[in-house]
């Protein structure tokens, strides 16, 4: 689980080259974020006259406060702050529920297999590949029948349903790596289905729980398609508000405000990746990548 010890014997020239390549690659990855950040700090006049990489002469957070509190999205001009909380309200329950269901499903599919459970897992996997354009209309109909059309609850349900396939895949592949003997021994000791899950499986699942949380959070927070069609009015998530802000059909384009709003919309997922990115890699190592 550690870096190749062989690195120690590497020629210093190669070492410099390695660092150079890694840093050049880092620049490539950072460039779009830099352009966004840089633009968000400039004034409109400066954006028009300068180039993408020229640093702001007079950096200002005005665009940020406008994006947060007073930019117009539709006929209300309250910025994206309200939508930010909408997204939180949608994302938190949807991520938690889908991760929970995925954990239990993965547990059954790896440790309590029954006839047909493999087939079912296969069928579920196809679900991860389903193009979402296919489900927009039938799902709309279903939500209508359930009385959930245009509600936050309905949107959460949609996210949970189409997230389960992935979370189940993560947990199932993780739990497959846990020795069956452990479960067998617990059963001989008289532990039941839930006891084994809560006392043995769950405590060792932190890495994969992190993977599932991060993945689901990224998917749901960034979702636009479901958000735009299954929510309405004041309940729209931030991606929809961002779209309304950026895709204005007329008027002066305030690129600095657009960019600030875009970064605000991206902040939570960015933060999660920065803070918990190492868990992601660790969790993957722990099992999610084992084919």
């Amino acid at each position: 689980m550690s870096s190749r010890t062989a690195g120690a014997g590497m020629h210093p020239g190669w070492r410099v080259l390695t660092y150079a390549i890694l840093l050049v690659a880092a620049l490539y990855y950072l460039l779009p974020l830099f352009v966004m950040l840089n633009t968000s700090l400039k004034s409109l006049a400066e954006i028009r006259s300068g180039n993408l990489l020229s640093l702001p002469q007079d950096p200002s957070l005005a665009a940020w406060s406008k994006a947060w509190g007073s930019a117009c999205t539709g006929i209300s001009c309250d910025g994206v702050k309200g939508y930010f909380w909408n997204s939180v309200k949608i994302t938190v329950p949807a991520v938690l529920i889908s991760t929970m269901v995925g954990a239990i499903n993965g547990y059954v599919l790896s440790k309590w297999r029954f006839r047909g459970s493999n087939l079912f897992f296969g069928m579920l996997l196809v679900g991860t590949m389903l193009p979402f354009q296919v489900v927009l209309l039938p799902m709309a109909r279903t939500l209508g029948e359930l009385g959930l059309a245009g509600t936050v609850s309905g949107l959460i349900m949609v996210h949970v349903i189409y997230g389960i396939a992935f979370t189940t895949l993560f947990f199932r592949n993780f739990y497959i790596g846990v020795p069956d003997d452990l479960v067998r021994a617990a059963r001989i000791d008289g532990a039941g289905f839930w006891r084994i899950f809560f006392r043995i499986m769950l405590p060792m699942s932190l890495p994969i729980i992190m993977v599932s949380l991060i993945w689901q959070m990224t998917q749901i927070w960034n979702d636009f398609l479901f958000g735009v069609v299954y929510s309405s009015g004041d309940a729209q998530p931030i991606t929809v508000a961002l779209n309304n802000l950026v895709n204005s059909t007329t008027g002066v384009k305030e690129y600095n405000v657009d960019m600030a709003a875009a970064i605000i919309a991206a902040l939570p997922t960015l933060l999660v990746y920065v803070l918990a990115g190492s868990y992601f890699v660790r969790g993957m190592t722990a099992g999610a990548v084992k084919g």
Partner: protein
Amino acid sequence: MKIIKTAVSAALAAAVSFSAQAAEVEVLHWWTSGGEAASAAELKRMLEERGHTWKDFAVAGGGGESAMTVLKTRVVSGNAPTAAQIKGPSIQEWGDEGVLADIDELAEAEGWDDLLPEVVAEAMKYDGHYVAVPVNVHRVNWLWSNPEVFEKAGAELPTTWDEFFVAADKIKAAGFTALAHGGQPWQDATTFEAVALGVGGTDFYTKAFVDLDADALSGETMVKVLETYRKTRQYTDAGAPGRDWNLATAMVINGEAAMQIMGDWAKGEFTAAGKVPGKDYVCSAAPGTLDAFTFNIDSFVMFALDGEDASEGQADLASTILSPAFQEVFNLNKGSIPARLNLPMDKFDDCAKLSGADFVATAETGKLVPSMAHGMSTFSSVQGAIFDVVTEFYNDESISAEAAARKMLSAVQSAQ
């Protein structure tokens, strides 16, 4: 199944609370910025004065493409909005689906038949019943130009396409971009229909884009139109593909470009930049279309909803939209002209006055034609098919005009 449904909805309802309010007016629109949003806010205010609550339902993007997706899913889910921004033949398509509500009662009480120009009134009806209310009339065949650039290049404002190319050559030689353009399918089509009208005339235009006549769609005139159209591409700049229309307008405003072919909503950009018509910029009919008028009418369509409150809300919404006060405020903001006849135009600028006069005049000469590029002349499927051919031809020099004309015919036929 019922039990599961109930259980699922109860569980989810418990997880997160949601609110529902009765007797509110929910209007789907894509007016999210600038003067448009201000106008929508005005509508909201006027409606609230009549005691209704306004639930804003704005979906921006792609000239209403995202909004249409949302609308479809909402209708399929049995949760249609009170009204939605739909126009032209699409009103008939929605009518065919049997989901619209009629507002005949109001129309009769207010005498819409006399109030509205005939073309407008016809477009608002499905099967003889009023199902929609018009907001405005846009003229699409405008040429916006910067006189200063023309002067520097020693060029004359063109009134025909031949003159256009003469002027464009001079402007190009003087180091300016002659034609400001944004390479998006609808903008490509906006230029294309202006060329079709200018080169082919109104009869050809109507045959091709309204009647979808096979000879017109693939004949010699169409070939000539296509050739002229692609020639305009040489006068655009390399940054054109994908550019938003308002950025193209900004090029004319800033004096980087001489001309833009765009509907009268472009005027809002000039106004916002503090420019004065006739002095800082000139609005004239697109080359060869002086006596013709390509119209684009925005309208709100009413959806069939349960309850007395809802239809009362719809009637009040329609009545407010057509009220002189709103028509004036809205159209001053948006650059268009009022949809109803005989409103005083003195607050409007010269471009709008010209547009208003031409609208009435062309209605009599029969040279008032619906805009293909803006979905006024065909169903969206046919419009899309024409867009595909036009935009592919425009961008791919290897396709001959003859081949494109043949393709246009087959694409239109298969989309019908």
